[in-house]
């Protein structure tokens, strides 16, 4: 009787263990693991500002993923190559990497990667002042941006910038507020962008007193993230806000600070 009792406990324990251990990790090929390692090294190089090195790393990772037809890996590395090329000012390359994902692709990529590629293309169009194309690509990105989409905040920020471009402060504020909600928890850089855009919307309405504390917050955030270009931009926006409020001395001081940051960035190896 007692042995039956022990056995039933053994069975119950085994059932529980089976449930706990039922998840078997996905088996990946050595080439896929190597590609992931190269991609992560490239990510570290990108964070250090070593863009050429990052580009080489992502290119090697892309080739490795292509060799074993790792579709997700290919999409990720194409997106990263487009991003690095964008930072390096190589916009033709950016277009061609995005083209591999969006224009007659050989593979079926996941919507989340397509949404990101379309957002990057919208940003490129915006930079080229082709606002109709920006709108077109944003609509596509929005359609592919399903649950847990990482670029939802970016899409809203670009929409807010489009509204600002059309001098529509109300829409810009609305989009930037939505973007703040989407980015608050996980995407601090994009959260700072949303704050900056909302400050710009307030400045468009001549609400400089409202814009000033927002811009101070953005500056503190960009400083904590270590983004010199954004810090320079924040200082210039703060100068504009002070100027609008009649604080010419503060504005002058802020412009001088922005100039110092720019010089330091240029002197960096």
């Amino acid at each position, binding site marked *: 009787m007692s042995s039956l009792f022990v056995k039933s406990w053994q*069975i119950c324990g*085994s059932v529980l263990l089976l449930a706990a251990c039922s998840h078997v990790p996905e088996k990946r090929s050595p080439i896929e693991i190597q*590609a992931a390692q190269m991609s992560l090294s490239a990510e570290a190089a*990108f964070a250090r500002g070593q863009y050429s090195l990052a580009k080489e790393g992502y290119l090697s990772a892309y080739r490795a993923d292509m060799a074993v037809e790792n579709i997700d890996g290919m999409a990720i590395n194409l997106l990263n190559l487009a*991003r690095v090329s964008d930072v390096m000012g190589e916009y033709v390359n950016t277009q061609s990497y995005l083209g591999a994902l969006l224009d007659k692709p050989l593979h079926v990529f996941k919507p989340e990667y397509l949404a990101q590629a379309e*957002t990057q293309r919208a940003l490129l169009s915006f930079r080229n002042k082709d606002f109709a194309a920006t709108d077109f690509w944003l609509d596509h990105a929005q359609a592919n941006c399903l649950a847990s989409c990482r*670029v939802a905040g970016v899409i809203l920020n670009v929409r807010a910038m489009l509204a*600002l*471009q059309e001098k529509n402060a109300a829409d810009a504020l609305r989009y930037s507020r939505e973007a703040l909600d989407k980015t608050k928890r996980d995407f601090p850089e994009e959260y700072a962008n949303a704050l900056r855009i909302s400050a710009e919307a307030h400045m468009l309405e001549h609400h400089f007193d409202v814009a000033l504390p927002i811009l101070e917050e953005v500056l503190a955030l960009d400083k904590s993230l270590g983004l010199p270009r954004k810090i320079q931009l924040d200082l210039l926006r703060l100068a504009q806000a002070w100027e609008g409020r009649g604080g010419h001395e503060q504005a002058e001081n802020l412009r001088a600070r922005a100039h110092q940051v720019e010089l330091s960035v240029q002197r960096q190896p």
Partner: protein
Amino acid sequence: MPRIDSELQFAKVKIQSLRFILTATLILLALILTVAIKQDYFSQTTTIYFFSPNARGLNSGMSVKLSGLRVGNVAEITMEPNATVKVRVVIKSDYARLIGRDAKAKLVKESLVGDGVVEIDPGSSQARQIAQNDVVVFERGRDIAELAEELASQIQPILKDIKQITSSVNSPEGDIQQTIRNLNKTSASLVEVGEQARMLGRNGNAVLKTLNQAAPGLLHKADASLENIQITTTDIRKAVAASAEQIPPLVVEGRMAVRDGHDILDAVKQSWPVRNMLPKLDERPLLPDGYVDRQQP
């Protein structure tokens, strides 16, 4: 009329609940049945025993293997009145047919870490097949500590030899130092001889006499020196030969131990829950920067 409706609804809910409970019970039973089948609770087994001087390395539930396959497990370990340990082993009857009465149970370790297993040496094919409650001979395989001890005992004489040679080289009373001293003395004496030879020309017969006296002694010293060198060289050669035999296996075993370590580490990394604690090696896309400076030309 509404009362009838509510009663109907209640009956429906009742039927649905019953159906849900029945399904859940069936699934649970199926799971229990699967586990029980996997655990061999329904297969026929043969019980055998062996005795060990102690229970070191033996655990209830540990695997029993035959030719590398798991054929049963240790069911019970009990202490006998004479302080020996009685081990009850349960083997699937299908495999018990392959085991003779002269079979041996051996406790072996399959890897550097973890429990050992009881390996059954099936014995000779001529022996009669093992039966229920038979007793087999037990022997204990060498564990890691014993292997390390054996390795250490093999290395110790080599180290001792090398130490002796080193101390012999350094010691002023050692063979090599003595040989060098003798050679120094010999060369000094030869200088002396040269001096005396030079005097020979001057002193003629008197010097010749001195040379005749000194030469045998010098030759004797040179002989002794050469003999010492020969002995030392032989000692060194012996030590090197002894080491040469034992060093390659040591290197191979060391390499195997390192590889085992890597394998174990890899396995641990992939096992639950450790795999959940390690950072994932996944490619991830960089987020685009959603801000464009519109005031830039």
